[in-house]
């Protein structure tokens, strides 16, 4: 009985965003949109969902429905001809192994991120790039995302494979979502909408439970464009101001019946029961990793506060620090600390 109730809440979460696999588009759902909760909230929620026992006496753990949006690459490619449960299971094990080494944080299209990659041609052997995530895709170990920025008036986009071992660090500097799933229109927008300072600091959010949706409407440059944006129902773009013939042609070419095509949506998504199984499988390990990282961050915060105490007593120009050496990569990037310290490597 309880399990059915739990399943129902899970499925409600799915039903609300039924027509979009990855995240909700506000215009399409008729149900009031519930904000997506972050991992902190999700952890507490998951704890509450663990009921003492069911008929057989076993504890049943159900992952929160938000996992579908936080970790979309754990869901396999829905094409039925190429699915195999054993292979997906093995791939998930490998993904979790990689995640135990590198923190791959929760992010969405529209978040500003910084990625550090090992690069033989760089002076420090590491290359760091900051950009806004304009698209993400792939499933399993092939998952990727594209970061875009404008550097010296030149637009630059880099596609990163999330599980590539060359990636040293992925930081989310600003966690937010936009009104669209794919921000490819930024290529035709004014450059200020894609420009982010390369030394941008991670922003700390006051309200950790909800991922904010940035309702920004972007101004596009005058035509010609790379794609026919008027045909794509973009929410995050200002009025395109095109002659009426463009909109007429867009209507002619549009497929409004697709949102009623249940079989099409069914073939594009993984069924709810399978999603539950997959995320229940993966849930406990992800929780453990998150917990370990929190502890590590707290330790590093303690270390740094210890160093501040030493620094105040000693000569401020002195560069020596007693106590534990904390490498700079262990400084938290997700905004847990209220101040940044310079640390020195030995």
């Amino acid at each position, binding site marked *: 009985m309880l399990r059915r109730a739990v399943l129902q809440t899970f499925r409600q979460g799915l039903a609300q965003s039924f027509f979009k696999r990855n995240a909700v588009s506000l215009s399409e759902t008729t149900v009031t949109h519930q904000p997506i909760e972050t991992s902190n909230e999700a952890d507490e929620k998951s704890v509450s969902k663990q009921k003492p026992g069911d008929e057989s006496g076993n504890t049943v753990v159900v992952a929160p429905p938000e996992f579908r949006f936080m970790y979309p690459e754990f869901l396999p490619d829905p094409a039925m*001809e*190429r699915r*195999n449960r*054993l*292979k997906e299971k*093995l*791939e998930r094990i*490998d*993904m979790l*192994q*990689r995640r*135990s*080494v*590198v923190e791959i944080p929760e992010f969405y299209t529209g978040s500003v991120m910084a990625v550090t990659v*090992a*690069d*033989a041609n760089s002076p420090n*052997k*590491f290359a760091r790039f900051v950009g806004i995530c304009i698209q993400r895709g792939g499933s*399993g*170990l*092939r998952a990727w995302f594209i970061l875009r920025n404008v550097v010296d008036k030149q637009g630059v986009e880099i596609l990163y*494979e999330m*599980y*590539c*071992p*060359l*990636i*040293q660090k992925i930081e989310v500097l600003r966690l937010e979502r936009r009104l669209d799933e794919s921000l490819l229109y930024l290529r035709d927008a004014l450059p200020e909408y894609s420009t982010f300072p390369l030394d941008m600091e991670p922003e700390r959010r006051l309200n950790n439970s909800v991922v904010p949706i940035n309702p920004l409407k972007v101004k596009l440059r005058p035509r010609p464009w790379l794609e026919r944006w008027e045909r794509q129902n973009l929410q995050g773009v200002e009025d395109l101001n095109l002659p009426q013939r463009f909109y007429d042609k867009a209507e002619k070419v549009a497929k409004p019946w697709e949102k009623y095509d249940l079989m099409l949506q069914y073939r594009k998504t993984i069924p709810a029961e399978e999603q539950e199984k997959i995320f229940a499988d993966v849930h406990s390990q992800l929780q453990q990793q998150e917990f370990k990282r929190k502890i590590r961050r707290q330790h590093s915060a303690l270390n740094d506060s210890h160093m501040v105490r030493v620094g105040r007593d000693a000569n401020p120009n002195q560069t020596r620090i007693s106590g534990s050496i904390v490498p700079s990569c262990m400084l938290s990037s997700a905004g847990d600390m209220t101040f940044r310290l310079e640390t020195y490597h030995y």
Partner: protein
Amino acid sequence: MSTLGLLRTLFNPKIVTPNAIQLQSLNRSPFLVGLFFNHEQVRTMSRVKRRTTHPPYWHVLKNNQRQDEKISSDNLRFVREVIQDKYKNKSPIKGSDLDIEKKEWDPKTKRSGVIARNIGVQHMWEKDGKKVVCTVLHVLDNHVIRYVPPEEYAKSIIGAKVFRNRKPLGCLVVGAEAANPDRFTRQYCSLFNEVGLLPKKRLARFIVTPNAVLPPCTPLTAGHFVVGQAVDVYGKTIDYGFQGVVKRWGFKGGPASHGATKFHRRGGTIGTGRDKARVWPGQKMPGHMGSERRFCRGLKIVRINMKYNVIYVKGTVPGPTNSIVQIFDTVLPRRKFTEAPPHPTYFPPEDGTLPQEDIWDSSLHVFGSPSISV
């Protein structure tokens, strides 16, 4: 002989008989090619039927042809009990049970192969960060069904063809994927009566030298192979069905616009008017594409998972995902074994110690290890 035939005999070093295939000995100087040889014929396999929808005539009928029998639930339960009783006593052979004396491995030994299922493709990375596409092959529950000694095999039709000019070798029949005997005919199940195993869905033959023979009922697992070795994978390619000339043979077709009338993906001309005045055999035309036997040779094994019986092989194999393939040690001379592999096959250690679960090649980056820094 025609004019062209005469000219060919004049310009060729050796005299050509009417029925011979005359490709290799042609004088291909540009002057002659432009003047006389305006058509090359490909007759090697054009008359051989490459695929059939029916099995060979010596196969027994496999799948049960009976319609739904109206059988009561009690009787159904009884049938299941009978099946369980019949097959429950069989235990797989351990290394010490091999009654054939353990023969030494030598470089000319041919070991048995293994039947596996291609379960998909996974991306892995090498230690320098280079991405590598690996095919995941799941070794099914293989058991040796029977051994056909060389003298007997050489007398069979296939054996006679294979060993026409060489010393005959033995043949191991291996089966994979046990299934409920209800779905097969009695004749097919009788193939497994000697062994006492549940009938298998797939059977395959592997040519082995007599010193690599395995007794019936021996299990074959992923441990049969060694990480870093090269294997050949045989499979049936993806069935594309009836395909046009552009996809099947890579023709360029015609222009998409500029007034082209109904000529976008067609073949164009199929012959000249003068020479031989007919369509030559082997002319490339639309037809059935795919579903053919192919071997991918020399693929390197980069990872073996002993717990799930899975092999990761660098590269791709013939056939779609979830299709059955056969894997055996490579025939390529430079990539063969230099030191002894598990011979005749791998047996788990008898003292109960579990083998290492996940074995990686030294060139691959293991996922749990720290990120690569160049």
